[in-house]
């Protein structure tokens, strides 16, 4: 089930058991001394995908990209690109181009020569290179900058030159290491749009590293959340957001309230999870991944919760808890309420800012009831 709206016309080859993946990563492991930067990573990516890698700093995203580009040799595992084993293929023979996190523009060459560098290595003619460079400059909206040196550009302009350079050779696989982090919001959105556009026009397969969840959610066909050298979860943005498989992904992608409980009963609609600790029951849809009686964690997104003022002594019900408002954060388009339950557990509840309010319905230190629908709770498999 894919809950995110699929792009019109986009296939979902990862659901087709017969479809051959374009990029296959099997058991990829990389150590730096004793430190394991990649730990038996398995991943398949299909042709034309826009695949996002998310993860905290140092989780191994760049290392994975560098293995794909052939810049570092993995200690174990295989990389198959279009069915071909890449182990013996040096970086300069791989049909893969990369946009580096530090851009790595050649400081002694002007912008045009930087962009044309890859084509010159192929022995393309001057005319071909000139045309392609002009095309790339137009694509990243840098016309007229061809004669500048990299040190005469702003950070965002450098990023665009690096992107143009990586695209110039029309690679089969394009690796982007945080390509847009140096751009301002408007330019970033325009470039995101442009990237998706390029990807759909050229059919190039993209693997993009990003710290920006929104970017990953809106652009990617699928994404992977990395954690200490492993892939914590792989799926479409909708799958990972709606059905996180662990506390880590639930908290990494978006925010989540994590509640602890015990599977008490299986109902026709789902499961009842008792959490004596907080003195309430949780109803959740679907089979819990753990058997009766086992300890589980339940994730509930803040925007799926409702908050209202409660009377002193109000009773608990299913999926309904009472607490006091400790803090309110104003984000413009929504509010976040921090509600402390009696046992000390804190919940985050976010509510859209529907109308301009002069008097808040819920205020600091108010006694409030927080509730949510059964389908809002997700029992985490681990």
């Amino acid at each position: 089930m894919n809950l995110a709206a699929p792009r019109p016309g986009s296939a979902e080859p990862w659901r087709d058991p017969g479809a051959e993946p374009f990029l296959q990563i099997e058991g990829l492991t990389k150590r730096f001394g004793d430190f394991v930067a990649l730990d038996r990573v398995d991943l398949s990516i299909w042709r034309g995908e826009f695949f996002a890698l998310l993860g905290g700093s140092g989780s191994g995203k760049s290392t994975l990209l560098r293995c794909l580009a052939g810049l570092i040799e993995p200690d174990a595992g295989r990389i198959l690109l279009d069915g071909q084993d890449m182990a013996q293929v040096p970086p300069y023979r791989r049909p893969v181009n990369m946009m580096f996190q530090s851009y790595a523009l050649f400081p002694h060459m002007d912008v045009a020569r930087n962009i044309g560098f890859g084509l010159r290595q192929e022995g393309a003619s001057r005319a071909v290179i000139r045309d392609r460079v002009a095309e790339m400059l137009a694509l990243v909206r840098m016309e007229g900058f061809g004669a500048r040196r990299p040190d005469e550009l702003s950070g965002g302009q450098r990023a665009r030159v690096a992107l143009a350079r990586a695209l110039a050779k029309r690679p089969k696989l394009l690796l982007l290491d945080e390509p847009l982090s140096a751009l301002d919001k408007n330019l970033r959105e325009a470039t995101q749009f442009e990237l998706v556009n390029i990807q759909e026009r050229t059919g190039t397969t993209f693997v993009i590293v990003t710290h920006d969840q929104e970017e990953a959610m809106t652009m990617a066909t699928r994404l992977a959340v990395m954690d200490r050298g492993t892939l914590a979860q792989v799926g479409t943005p909708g799958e990972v957001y709606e059905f996180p498989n662990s506390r880590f992904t639930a908290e990494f992608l978006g925010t989540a309230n994590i509640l602890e409980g015990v599977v008490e009963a299986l109902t026709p609609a789902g499961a009842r999870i008792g959490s004596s600790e907080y003195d309430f029951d949780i109803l959740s849809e679907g089979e819990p991944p753990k058997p009766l009686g086992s300890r589980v964690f339940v994730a509930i997104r803040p925007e799926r919760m409702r908050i209202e003022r409660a009377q002193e002594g109000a009773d608990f019900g299913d999926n309904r808890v009472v607490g006091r408002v400790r803090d309110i954060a104003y984000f413009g388009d929504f509010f976040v309420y921090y509600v402390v339950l009696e046992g000390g557990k804190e919940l985050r509840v976010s509510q859209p800012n529907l109308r301009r309010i002069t008097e808040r319905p819920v205020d600091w230190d108010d006694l409030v009831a927080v509730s949510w629908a059964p389908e809002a709770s997700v029992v985490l498999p681990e």
Partner: protein
Amino acid sequence: MSAARRRLLVLLLPLLWMAVFFLAPFAIVLSIAFAEAAEGLPPYAPLLRWVDGALTLQLNFQNLALLAEDSYYLDAYLLSLRVAAISALLCLLVGYPMALAIARAPERWRVPLLLLVILPFWTSFLLRITAWIGILQDQGWLNGLLLALGVIEAPLQLLYTEFAMYLGITYCYLPFMVLPLYASLVKQDPALLDAAADLGAPPWRSFLTITLPLSLPGIVAGFLLVFIPAVGEFVIPELLGGPGAQLIGRVLWTEFFQNRDWPLASALASVLLLALVLPIALFQWRFAGERRR
């Protein structure tokens, strides 16, 4: 104190140094070049003399004219420039791979390796040259080894040849090449080579298109650091080189110590200095201008 004043103060020290230890001695040498040789101590006539009760400046241009006329001096200059250029080139060829290897070595190895390059400086220069004589002479170690291996039947004439001279100069000046090269190579961003490889450049092409051009300032610095002192080098050609090579260093020595013609020797030295400094200053100025563009 204003920033401009502070800057002036910072500049003052090197300027003072230059004035005391470079400009003043050079002015003295230059003035001797325009004097006339004379018996006595010092062996030249003063420039300012009382003639008919008036203080007159007597400039003697004959020394300079002689340098231009007699091809003996011009040949010595040209030969010295040639020897210095070839030596600098040899240093570059030997030093570049060394500097590159050190710059690419794991970080904890770099300082020890650099120390090894400088290590010979810790023994006396003359001692090291004498050691080379021991190695190169007819009954020396090298000939002994070659004879023992059966590569040659009779000892080779190695010492007192051009070969020995170039070997000695390259050996002695190598650190001056390696250090600036290393400094410029080590600060190159390794990601640039990754990017070049990623864009399809095999290692030799990324060397030619990235590493080499980016190390050009280091090459220029190293070349000048070897070339300039090598032009006036006297000891190494004298001790290791053949008798035929009339280098400017030997000519200077002869004029100064044997002929005691201080004015001529001063003229030789002044012309040598100007011939070196002017092109280099011009080059630097253009080079810096290019960078600033």
